[in-house]
């Protein structure tokens, strides 16, 4: 386990590695405790999607991170807003630094590199995002559905709010998936 670094130090390392691709950043401090106040920090960054893989590599150079979650938001526009959250320097009292990176992924090119080669445990998260939002992960070995049934219609993603979403399927909930697939 390495010595914990402050949010500013981690940010400096990310700025050196990513340069222009680090679009904006924010360091948040939360004061906790009633009888004894202490603070811990969180780092929130906004990056260019092309620099995503490099940003994750920087974090693995600093410490083996703990993946908190991967999620995405679709507001019906031209981009998916992806959110990746990692915990660095965990296992140290008051030491964990949560680094959350966000980026807009254009809907005409929904491809991201996988991180399962560095962290095999991220497979569940990536498989869920793949089936729910339609993001393709390059290098992901197991591409089977995680929560959705195997005969789920192709091109339908439950979290999408555009034409690829399930709005029309909700209207036909009395029909079976096979009937919808056959176009009845």
């Amino acid at each position, binding site marked *: 386990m390495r010595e914990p670094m402050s949010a500013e130090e981690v940010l400096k390392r990310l700025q050196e590695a990513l340069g222009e691709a680090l679009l904006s950043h924010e360091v948040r401090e939360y004061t906790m405790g009633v009888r004894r106040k*202490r603070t811990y920090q969180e780092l929130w960054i906004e990056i260019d999607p092309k620099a995503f893989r490099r940003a994750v590599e920087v974090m693995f150079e600093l410490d083996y991170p703990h993946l908190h979650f991967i999620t995405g938001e679709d507001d019906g526009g031209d981009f998916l807003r992806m959110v990746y959250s990692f*915990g660095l320097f965990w*296992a140290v*009292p008051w030491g964990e630094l949560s680094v959350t990176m966000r980026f807009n992924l254009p809907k005409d090119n929904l491809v991201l590199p996988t991180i399962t080669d560095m*962290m095999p445990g991220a497979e569940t998260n990536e498989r869920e995002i793949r089936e729910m939002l339609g993001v393709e992960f390059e290098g992901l070995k197991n591409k089977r559905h995680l929560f959705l049934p195997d005969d789920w219609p192709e091109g339908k993603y439950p979290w999408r709010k555009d034409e690829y979403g399930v709005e029309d399927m909700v209207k036909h909930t009395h029909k079976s998936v096979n009937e919808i697939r056959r176009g009845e």
Partner: protein
Amino acid sequence: MAKTQYYVPVGPIHPALKEPIRVEAKVEGERIVDVDVKRGFAHRGIEYMGMKRNAIQTLYLSERICGICSISHPYAFVIGSEKALGIEAPPRAQYIRTIIAELERIHSHILWLGVVAHEMGFDSLLFWTWKGREKVLDILELLTGNRINYSVFMIGGVRRDITESQAKAVRDMINYYRIFTEEMKDVFLADPVYKARTRGVAQLSRDMAKKLNVCGPVARAAGLRMDVRQDTPYDAYADIDVRAIVPQDIVGEARGDAYDITLVRIYEIEQSLDIIEFCLDNMPEGKIMAIPNYVALLAKIRRSEGEGIGMHEAPRGEVIHYFKYGNKRDGPVVWKVIAPSYNNINTWGPLLLGAEVADIPIVVAYIDPCMCCNDRVAVVRDENGRLIDPATLHLKAVEKTRKLREELGVRE
């Protein structure tokens, strides 16, 4: 002679599984050579439902995610929402939250000890541990009015105070469990049969635990000192120096097997008793809600914009809720939930490879899997098989709490 491979499907409906999940194992003789785990048999899309409701409705919806640790999800929910909205809960409310969360840890750990004894065939142990668990369930009902799904948390506080006479009942319970934990150490940890059945079974190395991204007692049993209460403390945990309990501190080494995980859980019950005692001794005075008016709270949410991550160390591991508020809505625009079993189920594949068929129940049970955390709906029927409506159920619950208060001699 060439060995023939057989295919053994376990689940989604199977006596060894309490909830639907499917473990497909390929076996050669008694050895498992290939495993595939399928989940999502009862996926309810709760996150999607939550994004269409207001924040208070979503808070109580989040309580329905898990049936056993029903405070874990609301806890992460309120922490995440408070971070996103910039609300701070009053000190007294923070202490009450911690007490309820720790009471729940005691009941969840004892429940698991019973389940794992049952999976190994020690059914008398199951009945003994579950009888011991009733005491903490009674106390939870006394404090909140409900045996399960307590509905006591609120964004910026709690809905019920702990009175003097209730605190006395909690102290009596602590004394009871101090003796009960010592007995459990004897029955589980010192027992040669239990030791023989669990040592070396479901062994997870430290490196593998790290790579599989596991959390909670599973990670701690493998020797990783991770605990949200220690890494990023919140509420009353910030006043108490909570330290992650790892087997190397107790028996000198961490092997990460089913025995170590039993050890971690039993010692964590003791730790919870200490935390509850500290909270009762140092309970601050004052109000219990930051914004007592729900209409004002929802109006504040509608005006706010922000993101926040709430983390809580649930009995099974960390629960993480991510929020985004904005778009002039009084509920979350984005809500993402990660339950501990989401990552911990990843361990089944590597652990079952090379194991024996008889080990499947232990490997499955040892991480304390919660399928409903991942994917559930509960309906209650009366003795004639008819559905009970919410009003009748509420009435029955109120009657039972009154009876319990009379029995325990608590007036208010």
